[in-house]
């Protein structure tokens, strides 16, 4: 039992899953802070399709998400990523990825 607890503590924090809702042609929240190892899930509530696309040093692309579809990104690298909807470039979001 003690050994199991020690292993659990040594393994570090449990990765979390964060949700960004896309509604009204906006990302909610527009800025999100996560930790390396966490997963971010975008869910599109709008009628029109969207993407969450980052093309800086940290890259990902959910591809087109139709209404109620989700896309996800596993944060592997620390940094600040600014992303957009590739279909609607006026839609912007920021993902801050902290090292742990």
């Amino acid at each position: 039992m003690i050994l199991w607890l020690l292993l659990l503590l040594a393994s570090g924090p449990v990765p979390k899953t964060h949700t960004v809702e896309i509604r009204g042609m906006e990302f909610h929240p527009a800025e999100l802070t996560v930790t390396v190892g966490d997963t971010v899930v975008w869910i599109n509530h709008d009628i029109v399709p969207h993407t969450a696309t980052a093309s800086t040093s940290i890259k990902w692309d959910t591809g087109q998400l139709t209404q109620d579809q989700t896309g996800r990104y596993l944060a592997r690298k620390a940094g600040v990523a600014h992303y957009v909807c590739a279909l609607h470039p006026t839609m912007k979001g920021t993902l801050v990825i902290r090292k742990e």
Partner: protein
Amino acid sequence: MSAFHRLAALALPFTLTAALHAQATPAGPAPASAPDLSDPEVAHVAVTANSIDIDLAKFAQTRSHNAAVKQFAATMITDHSAVNTQAAALAKKLGVTPADNAVSQSLQSGAAQARKSLEPLSGAAFDRAYIAREVAYHQAVLDAIDKVLIPTTENAELKKLLEDVRPAVATHLEHAKQLHTQLAAPAKTGQ
């Protein structure tokens, strides 16, 4: 009588915008004489209005060589198709079968006029004219949604659809305005 009649108000801004595609000034608040259309006819008007922008976007994709303009056109096709799908689904749910009518024909006539004015253009001139038309078109639609449709619609489902569509139209307008500004810049240095 039916909330679907409110959609008829879209017809005049669309027609005016199509006819005066280069003008950014919309027709203003509620048209004084909304056409007296049946529900099936109004449903047809709504679908036609989306289809017009889809068709023009398809034309723009074949004519433009500007990556940003082509992307904008692709988004118009994708988004207006999605809205059309929702509008058609709602019409079906409410038991409305779209029927061709004079307003739809007028919209199509206005669209043909817009297409005709774009036809001889190419390169940067085409891009500017197409995007200017898109700015005016979406501004007119937005005005119709804000000033006529949402405030007066009583049917809850139709009202929600309008409220859901409204941010997309506003985003299209903002996108088109940004492109319009970008396209204006090289034109000054090129001539």
